């Protein structure tokens, strides 16, 4: 990125994190090899450097972990809530103490900018444990009747886009409500979950309450299907979510699914343009667009289309793409080669279908997986780039004339996770927000998260809510 104002490199030191050459599965409080001895490598997406070799969980390991969790459930669920609360408060504190280390680790393993792991992921991780810690001894007051009971063993499968944050979203409410956990992190980002195992050790958490099984989809499928799992929680693709819904059919397993999205970010002609541009950038380029609730469809009122696009393009030209450990980096690496090729093929399809592609002048590093921030204009609702979740830094721009048309276009998707509204008019915000079929609506802001606030989708974006009082329901027998 050639610029008059070149930035000096400002790299965060990676010496704060000590990554072992190999890690085992974390079952019943111990690190252990996989039953069949299989291992896989986890690489840094920004450099393709191998970070560590990880034991790969298989069906036998899933069974062992579920047994450990079942055994631990008896004592853990019988603990007074006030004691469980203290464990969770301890975990929250240790996360805070080690947050710099974990931020660097997450950036190395995931490829996202240190700015984001440091300022968004880690503070939210700690906040989730703090929030749910406080619920552990107050469940009688949560609105689910007196003495709501935990479900038992929770099988949890999480994605690679926010590895530690998704772990926190899953584990904190599960433990607070008295369940025990077997969690499978994604195969490309297992490290922070394994470091979390060490945090559980430091916190003195009883053995077997949390079990971590790095592995691939087969391990996730085995966990979901395991007959002794009482609760399934999944965050990931809609296709896998549907498969999970089929797997648990006819069982008593409780399920929550947090799936894909194709969020509409609606900008009206009276919107504060500068703030809207920031919101649009944050909505689709945060975490390289690898966010289920990303605002990947920009709906602009026709009368301000050109003005807004000019501002947006100017702003995109100032984004800095490169070393995720550099504190000035805005856009890091795409999580994996596989994801990069998925983004690339969808973008090529967008071009082939006649949408107009634009990216700022942007040099991509030699090694690693990179994709320049990309805009599509001349997009219609029928275009693939307006319909399919791309899960990358790619924004499709559509226009509308009336609020009704904006709502109709925003809702014209099988997904229903998030939406944005930009306008100065309060009554318009409320009217439009009412009509949008989405679980989270950000007005004059975007991509805001908080442990007190329920998050989750309508339609094919899944069911159940995470966060807030609502998030407890998924782990209680109600």
């Amino acid at each position, binding site marked *: 990125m050639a610029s008059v104002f070149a930035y000096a490199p400002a790299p965060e030191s990676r010496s704060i994190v000590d990554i072992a050459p190999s890690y085992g599965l974390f079952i019943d409080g111990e690190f252990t090899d996989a039953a069949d001895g299989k291992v896989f490598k986890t690489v840094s997406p920004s450099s393709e450097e191998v970070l560590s070799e990880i034991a790969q969980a298989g069906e036998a390991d899933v069974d062992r972990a579920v047994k450990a969790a079942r055994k631990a459930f008896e004592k853990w669920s019988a603990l007074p809530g006030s004691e469980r609360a203290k464990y969770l408060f301890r975990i929250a504190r240790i996360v805070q103490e080690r947050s710099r280390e974990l931020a660097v680790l997450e950036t190395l393993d995931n490829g996202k900018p240190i700015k984001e792991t440091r300022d968004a992921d880690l503070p939210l991780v700690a906040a989730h444990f703090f929030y749910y810690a406080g619920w552990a001894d107050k469940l009688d007051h949560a609105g689910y009747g007196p003495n709501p009971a935990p479900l038992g063993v929770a099988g949890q499968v999480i994605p690679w886009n926010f590895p530690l944050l998704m772990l926190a979203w899953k584990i904190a409410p599960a433990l607070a409500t008295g369940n025990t956990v077997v969690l499978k992190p994604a195969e490309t980002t297992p490290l922070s979950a394994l470091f979390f195992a060490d945090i559980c050790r430091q916190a003195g958490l009883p053995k077997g309450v949390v079990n971590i099984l790095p592995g691939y989809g087969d391990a996730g499928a085995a966990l979901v299907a395991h007959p002794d799992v009482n609760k399934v929680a999944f965050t990931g693709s809609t296709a896998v979510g549907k498969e999970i819904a089929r797997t648990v059919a006819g069982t008593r397993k409780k399920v929550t699914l947090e799936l894909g999205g194709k969020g509409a970010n609606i900008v009206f002609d009276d919107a504060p343009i500068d703030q809207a541009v920031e919101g649009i950038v944050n909505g689709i380029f945060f975490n390289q667009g690898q966010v289920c609730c990303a605002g990947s469809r920009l709906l602009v009122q026709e009368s301000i289309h050109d003005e807004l696009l000019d501002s947006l393009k100017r702003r995109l030209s100032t984004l800095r793409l490169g070393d995720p450990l550099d504190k000035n980096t805005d856009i890091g690496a795409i999580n994996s080669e596989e994801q990069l090729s998925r983004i690339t093929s969808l973008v090529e399809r967008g071009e082939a279908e006649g949408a107009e592609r634009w990216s700022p002048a942007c040099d991509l590093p030699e090694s690693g997986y990179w994709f320049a921030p990309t805009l599509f204009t001349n997009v219609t609702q029928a275009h693939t780039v307006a319909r399919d979740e791309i899960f990358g830094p790619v924004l499709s721009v559509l226009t509308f004339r009336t609020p009704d048309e904006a709502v109709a276009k925003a809702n014209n998707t099988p997904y229903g996770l998030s939406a944005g509204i930009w306008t100065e008019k309060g009554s318009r915000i409320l009217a439009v927000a009412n009509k949008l079929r989405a679980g989270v609506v*950000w007005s004059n802001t975007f991509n805001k998260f908080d442990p007190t606030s329920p998050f989750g989708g309508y339609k094919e974006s899944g069911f159940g809510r995470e966060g807030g009082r609502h998030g407890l329901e998924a782990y209680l027998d109600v």
Partner: protein
Amino acid sequence: MSERLTVLKTYKLYVGGKFPRSESGRVYEVTDSKGNWLANAPLSSRKDARDAVVAARKAVGGWSGATAYNRGQVLYRVAEMLEGRRAQFVHEVADAEGLSKSKAAEQVDATIDRWVWYAGWTDKIAQVVGGGNPVAGPFFNLSSPEPTGVVAVLAPQKSSFLGLVSVLAPVIATGNTAVVVASENAPLPALSLAEVLATSDVPGGVVNILSGRTAEIATPLAAHQDVNAIDLAGADEVLAKELEIAAADNLKRVLRPQPVDDWSAAPGTDRMTAFLETKTVWHPTGSLGASGSAY
């Protein structure tokens, strides 16, 4: 003088506020618990199910957009109409379930009271399950429940009236519209309920009632891409599993069959919340100055 010959009723479906026969032209024999013929009920087809979904979808906007107060008024009106037809329903429930007049009367009374109970929920559920969240930052946000849309309801097989209302009322109280599959062997109280709904200010399409073979009608409903949720109360274990698998195709909200010993037991809010979505709306908050006051 010869005894007067009674006038029999032709039972029909209730779809989109109208009373059509099954498009298939089929009927099936409905008998009382002793096997005596009561009526020929419509044997609904897949096409009837799809038509009912179309009607239910059309009604979603108006019904979910009505004020909660208005929905409560309409539901209470239904209870008023039910009370007026109490004798008719006692008769039908007694025949359908093989109950004595007094037992059937208990069922009908409980049913009417249940309907009144749900009528009172329309403008309270949002306060009970929604609320403001104390966000750590300069934001205001609010979580509110919203209806999920069109709900397919497989009415309980045994409890032809109390069970039926116990699964239908919570669905529409919260602003959803319903396609109900009546009890297969005892559909007549459900079909008569349609007459009450039609004369109670319930907009056409909000409730649609089909009779016939539960499995035959439920299968296309579970697979229907424009159905948002399904209540499997009236499905047996094998059918429920099959339908749940079909429902995964568009990630319908599924309420699995719950073991219910006694429909007259006090219902909780679960049957309402099962078909609600939670929407959280965020907005930045401004600042009026360091003193904490604008004045």
